[in-house]
């Protein structure tokens, strides 16, 4: 692939952006006095800022690049990640879970698990989470540096070191506040940087009508009915009728319920943003306010991929073809940038790409330093020290987290399958966790032993299921089937993942109930006040104007999402 040439104006935009990012950290440094300031922004963030940060922390480079790649590979069905997955989950976490997260005054998700269940459940979650965040920030650093090397010819080392130093500097200076403020800046930059790309692409293919017409060729060439790339629901009756290889039950249950709720409701990376909000109402509104822009994101991140694949069929052939004969879908966004944007806007587009990467990485690092300091260091290594000690530890953990991420990025260059393996383990750990939270928050009889061993059961069942099935055309190994026998073959990896999640969630749910009934409750009703639905006073919102009431916001956002589903049915 030929490298894109950047002009002086492109570099200027990039440098201005870096200056602002560092400047925000510099200004905020004097507000960091205690560990609560550093790890939780002193719980002082207004709802709109927390909401946009909630969104942006998840909007890493992998999301931008990966969703466009899926848009090219699977078409409009990719919107299910938003309109079936993320939005309902965000409404649920805002309306039903935030009262316990925020109300319990827990400082992290693992700490909530300790208050609700016991030490071992917290320890298990804290350890796995800490390891996972370091690796996922390392992997996204690797992905970005590889991309910049391929597209711009920048040196891999320079990209890694430069981005690591900038993220380190602004988190070190201003802690979570600095990460959150920058995430909001990055949010606007990502939207305003990618929007011209989408508009130009749409103009080029002749609007939505022109796009669907071109995508019909893509679909029929691949052996599907004409609308397979431009409809979201019509082809879900059987797994063989759509490019994703899933049927509606696996999609709604696996992706919509288990994976999305598991991620948005239990992942500390996003929950931390809401925990930093300045009041209970603000915390509950955080995910709801985030859901409004999130609802429109498919047009920003999925459409570029669909446009690229439509042009591919039209003969322009933008995507380079890999050695196995399939296009390199991950390059959808970069080739669009190079194809449509002249010097000037090109710099803006690349700055947006860098911003998405930095927001994702900062999200991981701030979640890591908090879990490490509060849930591992303060709990098991050095309890009972003065607050200043933990603040120093937070600074040290930030440096350590970044260095470990860089190491993980280099490890990924050496062992390419680390990435696949970690995504696998992540799915094993996250999917059952949602069952644990659901039972913990809504069934007061759930016991500590039930939660811990239920979680273990869910994780093991996920591994077992994965070890006994394979996606079509894959060899036994990391992709599945590693237990010797292959009992079932799924039409795609996506379908396999969805079903692994369903098995993991269900087994954790059942095992937790059974073990809880067999063991004695380890917490009294008094202990569980504020942690469990039945023992927590209802939130009263009558004093708020209707547009600030969480329940109203939730209903409105769900109604809009329903309309979007119907329009693109």
């Amino acid at each position: 692939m030929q490298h894109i040439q950047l002009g002086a104006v492109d570099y200027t935009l990039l440098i201005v952006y870096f200056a602002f990012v560092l400047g925000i950290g510099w200004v905020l440094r004097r507000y960091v006095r205690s560990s609560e300031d550093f790890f939780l922004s002193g719980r002082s963030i207004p709802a709109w800022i927390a909401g946009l940060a909630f969104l942006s922390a998840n909007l890493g480079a992998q999301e931008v690049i990966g969703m466009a790649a899926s848009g090219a590979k699977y078409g409009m069905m990719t919107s299910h990640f938003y309109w079936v997955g993320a939005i309902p989950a965000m409404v649920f976490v805002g309306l039903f879970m935030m009262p316990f997260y925020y109300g319990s005054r827990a400082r992290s998700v693992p700490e909530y698990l300790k208050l609700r269940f016991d030490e071992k459940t917290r320890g298990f979650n804290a350890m796995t989470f800490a390891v996972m965040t370091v690796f996922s920030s390392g992997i996204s650093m690797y992905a970005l540096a590889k991309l910049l090397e391929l597209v711009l010819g920048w040196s891999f080392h320079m990209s890694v070191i430069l981005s690591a130093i900038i993220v380190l500097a602004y988190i070190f200076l201003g802690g979570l506040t600095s990460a959150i403020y920058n995430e909001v800046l990055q949010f606007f930059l990502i939207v305003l940087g990618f929007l011209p790309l989408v508009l130009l692409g749409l103009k080029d293919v002749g609007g939505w009508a022109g796009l669907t017409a071109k995508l019909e060729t893509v679909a029929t060439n691949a052996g599907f009915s004409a609308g397979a790339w431009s409809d979201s629901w019509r082809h879900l009756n059987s797994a063989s009728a759509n490019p994703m290889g899933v049927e509606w039950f696996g999609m709604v249950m696996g992706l919509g319920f288990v994976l999305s709720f598991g991620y948005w409701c239990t992942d500390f990376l996003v929950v931390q943003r809401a925990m930093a909000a300045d009041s209970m109402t603000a915390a509950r509104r955080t995910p709801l306010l985030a859901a409004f822009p999130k609802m429109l994101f498919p047009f920003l991140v999925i459409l570029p991929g669909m446009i690229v694949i439509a042009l591919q069929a039209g003969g322009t052939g933008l995507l380079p073809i890999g050695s196995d004969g399939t296009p390199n879908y991950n390059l959808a966004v970069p080739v669009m940038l190079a194809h449509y944007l002249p010097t000037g806007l090109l710099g803006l587009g690349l700055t947006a790409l860098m911003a998405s990467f930095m927001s994702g990485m900062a999200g991981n690092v701030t979640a890591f330093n908090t879990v490490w300091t509060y849930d591992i260091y303060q709990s098991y290594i050095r309890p009972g020290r003065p607050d200043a000690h933990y603040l120093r530890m937070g600074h040290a953990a930030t440096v350590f987290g970044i260095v470990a991420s860089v190491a993980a990025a280099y490890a990924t260059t050496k062992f390419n399958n680390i990435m696949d393996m970690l995504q696998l383990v992540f799915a094993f750990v996250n999917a059952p966790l949602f069952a644990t939270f659901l039972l913990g928050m809504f069934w007061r009889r759930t016991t500590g032993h039930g939660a811990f061993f239920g979680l273990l059961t869910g994780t093991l069942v996920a591994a077992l299921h994965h070890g006994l099935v394979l996606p079509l055309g894959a060899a036994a190994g990391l992709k599945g089937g590693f237990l010797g026998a292959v009992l079932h073959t799924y039409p795609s990896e996506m379908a396999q993942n969805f079903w692994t999640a369903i098995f993991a969630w269900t087994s954790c749910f059942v095992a937790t109930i059974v073990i809880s009934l067999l063991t004695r409750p380890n917490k009294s009703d008094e202990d569980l006040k504020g942690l469990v639905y039945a023992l927590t006073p209802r939130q009263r919102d009558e004093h708020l104007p209707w547009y600030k009431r969480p329940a109203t916001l939730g209903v409105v956002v769900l109604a809009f999402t329903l309309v979007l589903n119907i329009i693109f049915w």
Partner: protein
Amino acid sequence: MKLDLRLPIGLMFTIFGVILTLYGFASDRAIYNRSLGVNVNLWWGLVLLAFGLVMLAFALRGGRKAERGS
């Protein structure tokens, strides 16, 4: 509130808008072949400038309100 976030957002996008608009005027028309003949630097520069100025206006108004309040 520690730092009115609208201030840096407004400033950054105003600077971006000015740079892109000026560049849109100065640049050679030939580079816009790839953007379908549209001078996107000029037009999008103006969009960013407008967004930046609106954010700045909100920040300044908010700042005055806070002064009166205290």
